[in-house]
């Protein structure tokens, strides 16, 4: 009887915790979508801000964010995967390996504003890249590295050793084993991790603050050494820095909708990849 009550109590606890999390998500989404959705239109997406940003759309911010994410991916993914392969496949357990792992875990916990300042010091000033989408992309690449490394390592760990043995026993080198069997098998997990960490990077504001994001750019530029607009910063600016905040509030909400949808679509892709992979198994 007591066992029954206990398990019922546990059940209630679990359900209510889950419900609470879902409730918060629902409130946030409802707030944003109810206040912002009506301002989102095709025109809002494909036009540039006009009249001191009280009118017009967010096209430069969308393109800026996409370009930024591309640079982040190009920089973060190869290094991240290479590092994870080294740690999981090559590195022997030693004090050094443990230190490297601990360092990576700690990097994941560093506040993003620190990355921003670091990017300012290293890329903008140290490497003379200036405040540009390249500097900002590299900074975000650094920020997402620990996540990419950790998720890739987890994906590699899930590949059973029997597969490594099977391939090696056929006379494959360790490199061939990783390239032909281990990486392809781990790919869905790796992709999911990449998309999630990159979509997280897409929503960051602090790291791009000092490294290249601009208040307003007239027109759209695809050049990597120019300043750029980005959705999260645009949103921050519209909701706190604009001279007529009340007037641009609908635009701020609409920007939030666009940002959320963008990140949501990325997450959906990650979800789809995982789903497809599970079905194959």
């Amino acid at each position: 009887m007591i066992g029954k009550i206990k398990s019922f109590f546990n059940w209630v606890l679990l359900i209510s915790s889950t419900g609470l999390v879902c409730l918060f998500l629902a409130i946030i989404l409802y707030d944003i979508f109810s206040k912002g959705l009506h301002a989102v239109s095709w025109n809002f997406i494909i036009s540039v801000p006009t009249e001191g940003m009280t009118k017009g759309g967010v096209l430069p911010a969308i393109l800026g964010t996409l370009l930024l994410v591309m640079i982040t991916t190009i920089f973060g993914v190869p290094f991240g995967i290479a590092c994870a392969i080294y740690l999981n496949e090559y590195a022997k357990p030693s004090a050094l390996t443990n230190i490297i792992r601990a360092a990576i875990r700690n990097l994941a916990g560093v506040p993003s504003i620190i990355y921003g300042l670091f990017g300012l010091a290293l890329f903008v000033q140290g490497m003379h890249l200036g405040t540009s989408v390249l500097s900002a992309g590299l900074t975000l690449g650094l920020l997402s590295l620990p996540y990419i490394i950790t998720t890739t390592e987890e994906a590699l760990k899930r590949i059973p050793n029997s597969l490594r043995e099977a391939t090696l026993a056929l006379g494959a080198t360790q490199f061939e084993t990783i390239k032909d069997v281990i990486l392809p098998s781990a790919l869905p997990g790796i992709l999911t991790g990449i998309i999630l960490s990159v979509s997280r990077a897409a929503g960051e504001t602090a790291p791009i603050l000092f490294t290249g994001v601009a208040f307003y750019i007239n027109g759209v530029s695809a050049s990597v050494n120019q300043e750029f607009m980005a959705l999260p910063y645009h949103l921050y600016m519209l909701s706190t820095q604009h001279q007529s905040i009340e007037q641009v509030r609908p635009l701020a909400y609409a920007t939030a909708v666009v940002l959320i949808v963008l990140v949501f679509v990325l997450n959906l892709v990650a979800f789809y990849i995982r789903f497809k992979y599970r079905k194959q198994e």
Partner: protein
Amino acid sequence: MNEAKLKAESLNLWFGKKQVLKNVNISFPANKVTALIGPSGCGKSTLLRCFNRMHDLVDDVRIEGRISIDGIDIYDRKNSVTEMRKRIGMVFQKANPLPKNIYDNLAYALSLHNTPKDQIPKLIEQSLKESYLWEEVKDELKKPAVKLSGGQQQRLCIARTVVLRPEVILMDEPCSALDPISTNKIEELIKVLKKDYTIVIVTHNMQQAQRISDYVAFMYLGELIELATAEEIFKSPKQELTKNYINGHFG
């Protein structure tokens, strides 16, 4: 005894501080089936894995002694480990098909060793036939290998080993996860394969050792206790320990 194909001399192996193989001297005659038997933890699988250097993957392992195939030291740095693994194939306890289709499981093995492309289909068909799998899969070679039944997967793994034309095939309890019918098929296969290959098989199953092997090696606590023909081991073992094990007093 025939000429020794594969040989271990004064082999000692430690996992960390624990010594798992103790001064093992053993040689395996060419074109015969030698079964390694003994109670769990006696080191028979560990010994088997020494012969194609599967312990290279493991940290904290130390190996002393000499292992040779046709007199060539396989742990010598001068000799390529990949070339050696091609000569000494291995079939594992749990079937481990690669996450590719049936055809590509074998094609991949061949491609690792620069087999001319035009020969690959012929070689694959041949080794699938030799492994008695051809009739079951010839119409669905593009099917993912993991969709095959357990017994079929294991025969695929044997085919994948055979397609490389190794000289020695190591088998680590290849039937332990299979039903009696699949086991029977693989045992028949082993009897055919020994015409062309030197086979070393680890088995828990005394009847199996009796059915398929020419020689039997009995191991106990990391030591080789006795190596003789299957008939001698099962009818008139020389060592008291072997006799007790065969008669089921322990193990």
